[in-house]
Each structure stands twice: as structure tokens, then as C-alpha cells.
């Protein structure tokens, strides 16, 4: 088990009128190499949850373990943990500050204690792997487009060579093309380098398409945790939490209701297409 949360609770503004319980006795394990999607409506506790994974927030109760070690133990090196568990915040482009793109991306590796030459090597590799072309390396990050800035910021975390990459809505505010490119590059990182990915998203389609496991967060608890097909089969319950299943799942349910024996748990368009074609090849039968 790479990251493990044991009975973790977090309370904001404890003992005041503004007290809010953001996490309520959460138990969670993340295995190495998984691609996990986290969904939940605004204010459900997603962001609080992911900030516990790299020790930015200290649980009010409970334990967080990384590779079996308690990260809030006395001698634990949190700085090392944060370079192993990379966290990309929402709108990460707001954290850019350097005079040029390359130097900004080098910030992380340099903090890790690498030599400037090694840091630069890592930064170049990270930038290229998220699709930032070499010609942008010397421009000011403030002159880039929104999508480019986002990539540079993600590269800034990636350059620390983390084992786990947590991304909080990395596609918020991007156009469909930018969204697909970024998610595609994240998938590539997962497949080619075996990085464990935790993707927080509002888009059911995105998590269904990319994640192999979905964690649903609602009111600081985790009501569902499993494969997309399984989680989205609870679409009625998800709706009461202000969430939904992907559009295609609804289409499949509708088809089944009209009498076609399709797979109602298909959560991606590709799965649905296969199921419908299979059905059609056998001639149209109604059940």
C-alpha cells in the first residue's frame, strides 16, 4: 500500500461558530500504479482529502501512512514526502513566478537539493513530456496562453519526479482540445512511467474514460469506491449527492428500457459502442 488513510477526520475552525467537519472518519488505501478518479460536488471535502495525502494538512484525528510510515511521526521528513507525492492544485498557473518557463519548472527539483544542471535536465524532460515545445523555454510564463501556463505548472510538479501525481481539476477552464491533450498526457505518464495518478474532476465522462477506480466523496465521507462501472451503477444515489453518471450510461439505461439488451453499466462511449454493435450484429431482438 502506497498511501493509506486510517480513520482520518478533519475539522475546520474547530471550537468556533464556523466549525465545519470536512472529513469524517475516512479510510482509504491507494496502491502503486493505480489511476484513481475522485468525484464529489463543490465543498464535499475532495480538496481537503487530497491535501492530507502529501501532508499539507494535518488530520484532526486519525493517521496518514506513506509506504507504511506515519507521516506525522516525530522524525518523518515531510519535505521528502512532498517531492514523492506531487500535488497540482486547481488553477496551478497562479503559482508561476519566475522570469522564464525553464527556471520556474526548475524550482521544484532545486528545492529537492539537485544541482542546477541536474535540475535543468529534469525540467526540460518534464516540460517536453507535457507537450511544451522547446521554443517556449525562455519566454516569461506570464506571456503564455492559459493552457500553456497550465502545462508549465504541471511540469513544475512533475520535474520533482514524483511517484504519485495528484491533480485537482487540471482541466478546469480549458477548452475541449486543451482538456483532451492534458488528460492524454497524464494517461501517458501513467502508462509509460507507471506514475500513480489521482485525478480530481467534476466531469463524470473524464473520470469514466481515464480512471480505473473511482472514489466518491460526499459530506466528508466515501460512500462509493470501486471500478467506474460499479460506481456509476449507483447513478440514482449519485444524483442525490449532486453528481451523476456519464451521459452515455443514461443512454444505455434508456435503450434497455425500450427493450434493447445492451450493457447498462457501460460508462464510456467506446464500451457503449461495443455493446450496441454486439447487440445489432445478432439482429435486433427485443427482450
Amino acid at each position, binding site marked *: 500500500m502506497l498511501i493509506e488513510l486510517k480513520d482520518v477526520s478533519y475539522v475546520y475552525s474547530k471550537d468556533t461558530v464556523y466549525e465545519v467537519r470536512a472529513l469524517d472518519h475516512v479510510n482509504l488505501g491507494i496502491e502503486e500504479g493505480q489511476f484513481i478518479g475522485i468525484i464529489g460536488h463543490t465543498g464535499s471535502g475532495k480538496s481537503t482529502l487530497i491535501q492530507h495525502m502529501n501532508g499539507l494538512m494535518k488530520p484532526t484525528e486519525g493517521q496518514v501512512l506513506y509506504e507504511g510510515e506515519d507521516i506525522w511521526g516525530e522524525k518523518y521528513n515531510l519535505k521528502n514526502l*512532498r517531492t514523492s507525492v506531487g500535488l497540482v492544485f486547481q488553477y496551478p498557473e*497562479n503559482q508561476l*513566478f519566475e522570469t522564464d518557463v525553464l527556471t520556474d519548472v526548475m524550482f521544484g527539483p532545486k528545492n529537492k537539493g539537485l544541482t542546477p544542471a541536474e535540475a535543468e535536465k529534469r525540467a526540460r524532460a518534464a516540460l517536453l513530456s507535457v507537450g511544451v515545445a522547446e521554443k517556449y523555454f525562455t519566454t516569461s510564463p506570464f506571456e503564455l496562453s492559459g493552457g500553456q501556463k497550465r502545462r508549465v505548472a504541471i511540469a*513544475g510538479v512533475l520535474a*520533482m519526479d514524483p511517484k504519485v501525481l495528484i491533480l485537482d481539476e487540471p482541466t478546469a477552464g480549458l477548452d475541449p482540445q486543451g482538456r483532451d491533450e492534458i488528460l492524454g498526457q497524464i494517461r501517458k505518464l501513467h502508462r509509460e512511467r507507471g506514475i500513480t495518478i489521482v485525478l480530481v474532476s467534476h466531469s463524470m465522462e473524464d473520470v469514466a474514460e481515464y480512471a480505473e477506480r473511482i472514489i466518491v466523496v460526499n459530506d466528508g465521507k466515501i460512500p462509493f469506491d470501486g471500478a467506474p462501472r460499479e460506481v456509476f451503477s449507483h447513478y440514482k444515489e449519485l444524483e442525490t449527492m449532486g453528481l451523476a453518471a456519464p451521459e452515455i450510461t443514461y443512454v444505455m439505461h434508456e435503450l434497455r428500457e425500450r427493450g434493447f439488451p445492451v450493457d447498462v453499466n457501460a460508462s464510456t462511449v467506446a464500451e457503449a459502442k461495443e455493446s450496441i454493435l454486439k447487440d445489432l450484429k445478432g439482429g435486433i431482438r427485443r427482450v
Partner: protein
Amino acid sequence: MFKDITLGQYYPTDSILHKLDPRVKFIGTIAFIIALFLIKGPVGYGFATVVLVTLIRLSKVPFKFMVRGMKAIAVILVITMLFNIFLTPGEKLFSFWILTVTREGVETAVKMAVRLIYLVIGSSLMTLTTTPNQLTDGMEALFAPLKKVHVPVHEISMMMSIALRFIPILMEETDKIMKAQIARGADFESGNFISRIKSMVPLLVPLFVSAFRRANDLAMAMEARCYHGGEGRTQMKPLIYAGRDRIAYGLILLFFAVCVAFAFLGL
């Protein structure tokens, strides 16, 4: 990191003090502060105590919230008391080394301490029961006559409310950027003075960028809604005195008169 700081000190609850017009509370607070410096004797202080306790009860704000403001003046309080105790000439009570404690000294020290404490509690009573927006509205209305001498009262109060509104936003922003940089291995806590200042760059640059962006957006949004300054502008929630506000003014006047009377009688 900044989670404990809330906008102003406002304590949301439903009490008669919360409902009062901010102008009444503002004038009442000023009257209370002046009265504190007028009264001299124990009767006067006793009267002020009774009034203050009644007001705290009426406000329904837990007492510990009032005491919170006290931490800020704790140092001043101790220093004032020490100076008064040791440096006031008068009837000697006891002395050691070069320090002499006098009866007058102890008396003034106690008086000063009570004054300072009541002053802080009195003014926190206002900020605890009035939202910052109500406060600036109230001040704008009270200072409206200064417009005659070309003081931009409306603009000043607008700037004040914007500034107040921005405090929690910038706090949150700072917290976010700080966390984002810590996640990239930044270290804001260790190191010597120079390296600590240097470590602020990754925090301050994005913070300034975002502050300017927000200010720009706000200016645009205000212009898009045809904001053109205070001239001819009406308010969404105009301040109108209700019956309770008139009664409150009457009570403030009465309180002040009694305090003046006590002061003259030296009670």
C-alpha cells in the same frame, strides 16, 4: 494556516444589538469611550460596569469573544500598570530597592487598567455585532456632512469596504499559493533572515499578480454596472432609523448625562 482569521470580528447571531442601526452603535461607542475618561470615582465605574454587562448580555455574544481582543493590549496594559504603580508620587505604601509603591499609584493603575479593558470590550462589542459593511455604511452616513467641504466621503467608504472585502480573499490566496509552493518543496520556515526573505519571492510574485488581476476585474465589473461614484447613488439597504434606534439614542444620552453628573460630583 490562516483558517482562524475571519472577516472582521463579526459574530453572527440574532440580538437587539445586532438589529440596531450602525450609526447608533457608532455614536454609542464613542459616547461610552468619552464617558470612561470622564468618570473618576467608584460609583461612576460601577455604573459603567453595570451598563457594559447589560450590553454584553443583550448582544448574546459569548464573553470569550470579547476577551479575545484583550490579548492584543495585554502588553500595553501591563506596562501602563507598572509605570503607574511605581512612578506616581504620593502617600507611600511600601518600597524596595529604588522602587516605591504609593496609594495614588495603585489607584491610578487600577483605574487605567479598568479604562483600557472597558475601552477594548466596548469597541469590540460594536465590531462583534456589526458587519464590516454595515460599519462603513454607518460611517459614510455619519460623515456625509463633510461632503460640503469636498471630502470624498462616499469614495473613502467604498475604498474601505473593498479593502475589508479583500482581506479574506487575499488571505485565502496567500494560503493557496503558499501550499502550492510547499508542494513544490519550498521552505518558508527555516534558514537565516536573508534566505527567508528570498523564499518569499515565490509567494509574493504570484500574490501581487493575482491581486492586480482581481482589482482589474473588480474595476471592470463596477464599470459594467455603471458605477460612477457617489453622486446620485442610492443604496440597496438604506439606513433608516426605527423606533428602537430612537430609544437607544435616548438611553445613550441618559447614560452620558449620568456619567457627566457623576464626573461633576466626583463620585
